[in-house]
C-alpha cells in the first residue's frame, strides 16, 4: 500500500550538485522548493539573454534612420517576442522563482504545500517558453505585438503559425503560473511556523500572497481570450473577426482585463523585495508595516478596474474613459504612500550601500518617474497625445526595468549568499549597478522626448525628421551600456559561484527566518525553530540567548 502516499515528501538527503551521482537527473525530477527556485532563476536568466538580444537587434536597427539590418517582418517579430519573452518568461519566472525559494524559508516551512504541483509549474513555464520560441524555427514568430490585437492576429492578417505558438505557449505558461499562485496561497495560509501570525509575516511573503490572488484571477481571462483566438485561427470561428459578426474590441477587453493586473503581478513581488532589503541595509524596522500590506491590497483590488486605460483611443465614450481614468489615477495614491514609507524607513537609519541597497534606492527614484509617466497617460487627454508613441515605451521600461528589474537585481545581490553560500563580488556589482543605471536612463529617458516628438512605437524605421536620428542614437548607445552591465553581472555570478567569499549563515545581519539556516540550506530547511514573536525573530532569539548566558 505504499504505492500512493499523499504526504508531503520530507527531504532527507543533502542538496545534490550537478557533480553528485544523480546530479542532473535529480534536478530534473526534484520537488524541492529550493532546487525548483534555482531552476526558475536559470530559466529566466536564459530567456533574459534571449529577450535582451532581441532588444539589442531592435536598437541596432533603430540607431539611425533608414537602416536595413533586419527586414520589416523580422523587426515585428523581434519586438513581439521581446515584449512577450520579457513579460512572461523573464519577470514572471524570476519573481515566482525567488518566491518559490524564499517564501517557505521565510515562514519557517520545510516545503511548499504541494511540491509536485510546484515542479509542474516550473516545467510548464519552461515548456511554454520553449514552445513560444520554437516558432522562430517553425515558419515565423508571432508578429502582432505582445498584446496581439485582433484582427491583426487572425489568420487573414498574420499568415505564419507564429500566433498559434503564441496562444498555446502562453496558455501553457499561464497554467504553470496559476499552479504557482495556488501553491503560494495555500503554503502561506497553512504552513507558517508556530507564532507567526499573519501580522508577523515578512512583507515579501505578504506581497507574494496578495499577488497570487491576482494571478488566480487574471490568468483565466487571458486563457479564455487565447483559446478563442486559437479556435478562430484553427477552426475558423469568428470571435474577433468583425466582418463576420465578431468583435475586435472584445479581444482588447479580454487582453487588458488580464494585462493590467499582469503588470502589477510583475510589480508587487518587487515591492516585497524592496521592503525586505531597505530595512536590513538601513538597520531599521520597516516603517508602516500594516500600511505597506494594506496599500498592496488596495492596488490589487484597483488593478481590476483600470484595464480600459489601454483603450482610451478606441472610442469607448467619455463616461467609460472617465471611470477608468479615475481608477488608474487612484492607484497613484497607495503607490505614493509606499514610496514615502520606504524613504521613511531609511530616515534616521544607518544606510549601508551594498549593491543590493544601491539598486533599491535607484528603484525608488526611477520607479517614481515611471509611475508619474503612468499617471500622465492615465489622464485621458494626455493619452490622446502620446499613446502608442515612444512615450509609452519609456513608461513601460521605467516601470519594468527601473521598477521590477531593479528590485530583482537588488534581491539577487541580497539573497545570492543564501542560495549559493558565497557572496557576489561587490566591486563587480558596483560596476554592474552604475553602468546599468547610466545605460538604462540614457536609453529610456530620451524616449520620453521622442514620444513628444511624435515618434510612433513599433516602427522599424523613421523619417529623418530633425533630432530623431540623434535621440535614437543616444538611446541605442545606452542599450550598449546595459549590455556591458549585464555581461558583467553574468560574469560575476559565474565567478562568485566558484570563488566568491564564503557567506556564512547571515552575512547581512538580517532578521527574517531564511537567514537562520545554513547557506545554502540543507534539503531540510530547519530542524527546529523557536517561537516567532515579532517581525524580527532572529534578533529576538539572539537577545534571548544573550540573556540566558548572563
Amino acid at each position, binding site marked *: 500500500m505504499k504505492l500512493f502516499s499523499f504526504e508531503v515528501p520530507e527531504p532527507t538527503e543533502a542538496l545534490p550538485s550537478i557533480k553528485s551521482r544523480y546530479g542532473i537527473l535529480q534536478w530534473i525530477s526534484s520537488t524541492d522548493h529550493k532546487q525548483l527556485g534555482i531552476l526558475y532563476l536559470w530559466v529566466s536568466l536564459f530567456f533574459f539573454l534571449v529577450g535582451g538580444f532581441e532588444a539589442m537587434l531592435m536598437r541596432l536597427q533603430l540607431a539611425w534612420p533608414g537602416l536595413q539590418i533586419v527586414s520589416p517582418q523580422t523587426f515585428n517579430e523581434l519586438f513581439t517576442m521581446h515584449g512577450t519573452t520579457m513579460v512572461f518568461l523573464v519577470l514572471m519566472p524570476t519573481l515566482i522563482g525567488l518566491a518559490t525559494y524564499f517564501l517557505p524559508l521565510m515562514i519557517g516551512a520545510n516545503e511548499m504545500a504541494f511540491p509536485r504541483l510546484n515542479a509542474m509549474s516550473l516545467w510548464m513555464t519552461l515548456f511554454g517558453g520553449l514552445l513560444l520560441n520554437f516558432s522562430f524555427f517553425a515558419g515565423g514568430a508571432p508578429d502582432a505585438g505582445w498584446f496581439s490585437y485582433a484582427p491583426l492576429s487572425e489568420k487573414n492578417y498574420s499568415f505564419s503559425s507564429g500566433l498559434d505558438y503564441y496562444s498555446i505557449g502562453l496558455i501553457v505558461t499561464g497554467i504553470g503560473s496559476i499552479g504557482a499562485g495556488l501553491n503560494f496561497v495555500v503554503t502561506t495560509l497553512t504552513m507558517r511556523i508556530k507564532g507567526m501570525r499573519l501580522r508577523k509575516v515578512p512583507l515579501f511573503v505578504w506581497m507574494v500572497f496578495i499577488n497570487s490572488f491576482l494571478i488566480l484571477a487574471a490568468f*483565466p481571462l487571458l486563457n479564455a481570450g487565447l483559446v478563442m483566438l486559437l479556435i478562430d485561427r484553427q477552426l475558423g470561428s469568428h470571435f474577433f473577426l468583425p466582418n463576420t459578426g465578431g468583435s475586435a474590441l472584445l479581444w482588447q477587453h479580454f487582453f487588458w482585463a488580464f494585462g493590467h493586473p499582469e503588470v502589477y503581478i510583475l510589480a508587487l513581488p518587487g515591492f516585497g523585495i524592496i521592503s525586505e532589503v531597505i530595512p536590513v541595509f538601513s538597520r531599521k524596522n520597516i516603517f508602516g508595516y500594516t500600511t505597506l500590506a494594506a496599500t498592496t491590497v488596495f492596488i490589487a483590488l484597483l488593478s481590476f478596474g483600470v484595464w480600459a486605460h489601454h483603450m482610451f483611443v478606441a472610442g469607448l465614450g467619455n463616461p467609460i474613459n472617465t471611470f477608468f481614468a479615475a481608477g488608474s489615477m487612484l492607484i497613484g495614491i497607495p503607490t505614493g504612500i509606499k514610496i514615502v514609507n520606504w524613504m521613511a524607513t531609511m530616515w534616521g537609519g544607518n544606510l549601508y550601500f551594498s549593491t543590493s541597497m544601491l539598486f533599491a534606492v535607484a528603484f525608488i527614484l526611477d520607479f517614481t518617474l515611471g509611475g508619474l509617466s503612468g499617471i500622465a497617460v492615465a489622464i485621458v487627454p494626455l493619452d490622446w497625445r502620446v499613446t502608442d508613441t515612444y512615450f509609452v515605451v519609456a513608461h513601460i521600461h521605467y516601470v519594468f526595468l527601473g521598477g521590477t528589474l531593479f528590485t530583482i537585481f537588488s534581491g539577487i545581490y541580497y539573497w545570492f549568499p543564501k542560495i549559493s553560500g558565497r557572496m557576489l563580488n561587490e566591486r563587480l556589482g558596483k560596476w554592474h549597478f552604475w553602468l546599468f543605471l547610466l545605460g538604462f536612463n540614457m536609453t529610456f529617458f530620451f524616449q520620453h522626448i521622442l514620444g513628444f516628438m511624435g515618434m510612433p512605437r513599433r516602427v522599424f524605421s523613421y523619417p529623418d525628421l530633425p533630432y530623431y536620428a540623434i535621440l535614437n542614437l543616444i538611446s541605442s548607445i545606452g542599450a550598449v551600456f546595459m549590455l556591458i552591465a549585464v555581461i558583467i553581472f553574468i560574469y560575476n555570478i559565474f565567478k562568485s559561484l566558484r570563488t566568491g567569499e564564503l557567506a556564512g549563515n547571515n552575512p547581512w545581519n538580517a532578521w527574517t527566518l531564511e537567514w537562520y539556516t545554513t547557506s545554502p540550506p540543507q534539503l531540510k530547511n530547519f530542524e527546529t525553530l523557536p517561537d516567532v514573536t515579532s517581525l524580527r525573530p532572529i534578533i529576538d532569539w539572539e537577545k534571548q540567548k544573550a540573556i540566558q548566558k548572563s
Partner: protein
Amino acid sequence: MKIVFRQTKLLMQLFIASESLFFVALIIAYIYFRNFSDTWEASTNYLNVKRTAIFSIFLFSSSGTITVAKYALENNKRKLLISSLILTILLGATFVFGQVTEYMDLYQQEVTIDQNIFGSAFFTLTGFHGFHVFLGLIILTIYLILTLLDVFRMRDPSSAFLAAEWYWHFVDVVWVFVFFIVYLMPLL
C-alpha cells in the same frame, strides 16, 4: 494528516474560483455576441432544449450519486462506494453522450463552429464545459480503479476523493449556468 486535508480543501476552493473565471469569460463573450448579433435568433432555434434538458438531469443527478459515494467512504461501505462511483461515471458519460448527439444534430443542420458567430460562441462554451466533464470522468475512473485495487484503505481521510468530488460538483454547477443561459434564456 489533517493539514493535508486542509490544504487540499483550500487548493480546490482556489482552483475552482480561478477556473470559474475562465467560464465567466466565455459566458461574457456568449452574452456579448447574443446582444450584438443579428443572425443570432435564427440560430438558437436549432437547439434541442427538451433533449438537452433530459440529459442535463443525468448530469445533475450524478451530483447526488457522488454525495452517496462520499457517505459510503465516510462510513466504510466499500460496495456502496464502488457502485455509486460507477453510477456517477455512467451518468456523466450519458451526459457527454447527449452532448455528442446534440453536436451531431447541429452539424447536420449546418450549424458549425465556423458557420457564424452563434456557432463559435456556442461550441466554445459548451465544448469547454464538456471537456471539463470529460476530465472529471477520467479523474473518477482513476479513483474507481484505485479503490478497486484497494490502494485507498477505507476511511482514508485522503484528500483525493475530496478533490474529485468538489471538482465534479463544480462541473455540475457550471452546467446549471450554461444551460440556463444557452437553452432557457431564449425561451423566456
